[in-house]
């Protein structure tokens, strides 16, 4: 059964603030919305709470309660960066790490299949805990089976109320906390005492990691968790508390339809997650591979041309890596290590930076610049090692597309070209296909002479650039998430169909032999034998003329797959009693 760990870093923005301002440790400190007197307090540490400073208060009011209060803001960008760095830390322990979207500081990590690496899941969780404490972050880890269960149990273990706690309900909160403390002895056990102590100063150890042994046990314990530990809005939480619903068990008994009507979509979503209806697999981020390319040279190299060939060899995979990431090169970084017996270590480093005219993924634009730079450089020793790296930026569709040029096409010139082709090869040379309602394949279309390309109206001409931009945007949006090749950008919607090749005159096939020892070889003895037949698809018409000279039409179409991997499109003409090759699938 799949195992999952929830790692909760309580009051994550406050932890970040106290990690940044180390001298504030142990002193009353709060995170405020913005650096203004009327800004609201978002998070408060235990030292501030002793002065009855609670989240939701105005900063000025909090300052009136404690004149030594320290306050600071935490930028959302800083929180995002911290979330990313924690994700990177956690990836040392499991490849799949997901950060909660709406609750920064909560992470889920895939804990399946780790037994060969770690003797027990508890030891694995302890190692994570130690790593986070080393990074000055306090955490609570629960290893269980589902997202909600692990999340609820991780939240149940820490003492500080969530950020959503409002100052208006402080009195009610105090009563509930007393109630929680009584209940907490059942759910969290000895961790409680540690937790209360831990909140005064971060980072400290909140509690030992917990490993839940069965899904039923996880479910049973999660149902005991108080609602105020979950990410409910204060309004919804207070309303539910007023109804006497203060645990997950009571919450789960509520009908979903009524929840949506009374408390909105957010509460309904939490209800569904708690019921296990939306327990989706972990949505871990894709690891971004480094594109840096390195090479060790056998002999010290001073020849510029040979160096350029070495660089070209590394440049191609570097650019291919950028294209896979849908990025273009803004700046090219070339690191050379020169053989210098005279200097300490015997090697001297040299870094050169090149900037193309515009971000590019085209090696042909970079190589002339590199050649110029290498010619200008005076190498004080032979190059023994070189490395290529790039500063990149998101590429536009234009940069990765085959048709990147927006020059105006002269459609009148196309008419002149068509006229020349008609003069040289005949009037039926330049055509376009026009579909017709018919049954026989050769009758389903006709070739119509094409005199000129579609002449655009004035309004169409004016809007061409806008349409191109929209089309490029559509193509960009239709791109798959993971690119495997540079040209993957070109082949996009709609879902393509294999196109058949049609012979203008069907090819008469040899008659089938009575005994086909090597299988049916459609085009003769040298052909590969047929190993799969799809059909027949009968096209029949003119049966009323069966007694006349032409005998009507009765064809039995088949798709024939041979051992060479071809799909042939053939039919058996019953009146003529012959097989014909109509075309092939390409």
């Amino acid at each position, binding site marked *: 059964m799949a195992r999952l760990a929830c790692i909760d870093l309580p009051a994550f923005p406050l932890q970040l603030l106290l990690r940044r301002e180390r001298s504030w440790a142990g002193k009353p400190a709060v995170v405020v919305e913005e650096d203004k007197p009327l800004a609201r307090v978002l998070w408060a540490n235990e030292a501030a709470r002793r002065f009855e400073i609670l989240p939701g208060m105005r900063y000025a009011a909090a300052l009136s309660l404690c004149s030594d209060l320290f306050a600071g803001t935490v930028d959302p960008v800083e929180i995002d960066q911290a979330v990313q760095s924690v994700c990177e830390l956690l990836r040392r322990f499991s490849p799949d790490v997901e950060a909660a979207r709406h609750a920064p500081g909560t992470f889920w990590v895939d804990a399946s299949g780790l037994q060969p690496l770690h003797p027990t899941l508890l030891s694995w969780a302890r190692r994570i805990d130690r790593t986070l404490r080393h990074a000055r972050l306090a955490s609570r880890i629960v290893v269980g089976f589902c997202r909600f269960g692990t999340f609820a149990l991780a939240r149940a273990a820490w003492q500080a109320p969530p950020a959503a706690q409002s100052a208006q309900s402080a009195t009610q909160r105090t009563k509930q906390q007393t109630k929680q403390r009584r209940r907490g002895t059942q759910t969290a056990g000895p961790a409680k005492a540690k937790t209360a102590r831990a909140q005064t100063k971060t980072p400290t150890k909140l509690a030992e990691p917990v490993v839940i042994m069965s899904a039923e046990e996880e479910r049973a314990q999660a149902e005991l968790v108080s609602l105020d530990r979950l990410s409910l809005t204060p309004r919804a939480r207070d309303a539910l508390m007023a109804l006497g619903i203060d645990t997950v068990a009571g919450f789960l008994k509520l009908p979903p339809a009524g929840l949506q009507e009374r408390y909105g979509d957010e509460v309904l979503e939490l209800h569904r997650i708690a019921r296990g209806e939306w327990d989706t697999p972990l949505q871990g981020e894709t690891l971004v591979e480094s594109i840096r390319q390195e090479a060790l040279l056998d002999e010290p190299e001073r020849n510029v041309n040979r160096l350029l060939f070495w660089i070209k060899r590394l440049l*191609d995979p570097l650019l291919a890596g950028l294209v896979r990431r849908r990025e273009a090169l803004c700046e090219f970084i070339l690191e050379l290590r020169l053989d210098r017996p005279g200097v300490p270590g015997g090697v001297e480093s040299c870094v050169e930076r090149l900037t193309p005219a515009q971000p590019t993924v085209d090696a042909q634009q970079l190589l002339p610049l590199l050649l110029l730079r290498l010619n200008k450089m005076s190498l004080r020793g032979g190059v023994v090692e070189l490395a290529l790296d790039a500063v990149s930026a998101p590429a536009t569709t234009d940069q990765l597309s085959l*048709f990147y040029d927006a020059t105006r*096409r*002269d459609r009148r010139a196309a008419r002149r070209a068509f006229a020349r*082709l008609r003069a040289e090869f005949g009037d039926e040379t330049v055509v376009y296909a026009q579909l017709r309602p018919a049954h026989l394949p050769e009758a389903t279309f006709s070739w119509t002479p094409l005199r000129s390309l579609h002449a655009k109206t004035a309004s169409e001409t004016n809007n*061409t650039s806008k349409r191109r931009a929209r089309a490029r945007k*559509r193509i960009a949006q239709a791109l798959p998430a993971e690119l495997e090749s540079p040209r*993957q950008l070109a082949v996009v919607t709609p879902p393509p169909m294999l196109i*058949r090749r049609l012979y203008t005159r069907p090819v008469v096939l040899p008659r089938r032999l009575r005994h086909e020892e090597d299988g049916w070889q459609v085009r003769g003895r040298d052909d590969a034998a047929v190993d799969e037949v799809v059909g027949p698809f009968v096209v029949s018409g003119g049966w009323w003329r069966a007694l006349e000279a032409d005998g009507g039409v009765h064809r039995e179409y088949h798709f024939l797959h041979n051992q060479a991997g071809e799909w042939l499109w053939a039919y058996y003409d019953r009146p003529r009693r012959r097989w014909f090759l109509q075309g092939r*699938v390409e």
Partner: protein
Amino acid sequence: MAFALVHEAQTLQEPVAWVTLRTETFYPPDAAASAIDLAQLAVVRVPQHRDVCRAADQLARSQAFGLLVLDLSSGDERTLRRCVPMASLSRLMGLAHKYHCAIIFLTHKAERAPSLGSLISLRGQTTRRRVGPDAFVCRMQVVRDKRRAPGWKHEVSCRGPSGLH
């Protein structure tokens, strides 16, 4: 895969011409089912293989096209060598550079057979594999790429034509 490029070019309002022989051609209803605007796809049907490059020369020189597809898949290697001389390739390459036009040669040859010429910028080998009742995977393995390193591949899922399921 060639029609995917045709579709992309048409999406970007680039005129496209398909040069082919009169003896065989793509099946237009299939192309229409792949969202190709047939009315905007100029089809040039020439009598012989050697006329394909001459027609392409005229079309590229007109500066009116963003994509030219030269369908030479019915020719064997000897025919291709004779009908696509280096001089023609050189001219077409110059015109493609000058007028920002992409030119694609469709050929049918063995995996180890040489390319049409050293001037070909990108060469891909395509294969097709059936993976389900109405599902195919077309794969292009790039064996030569002058702009980037060769060796990359591109796969696209396709559905079969009517009846092939």
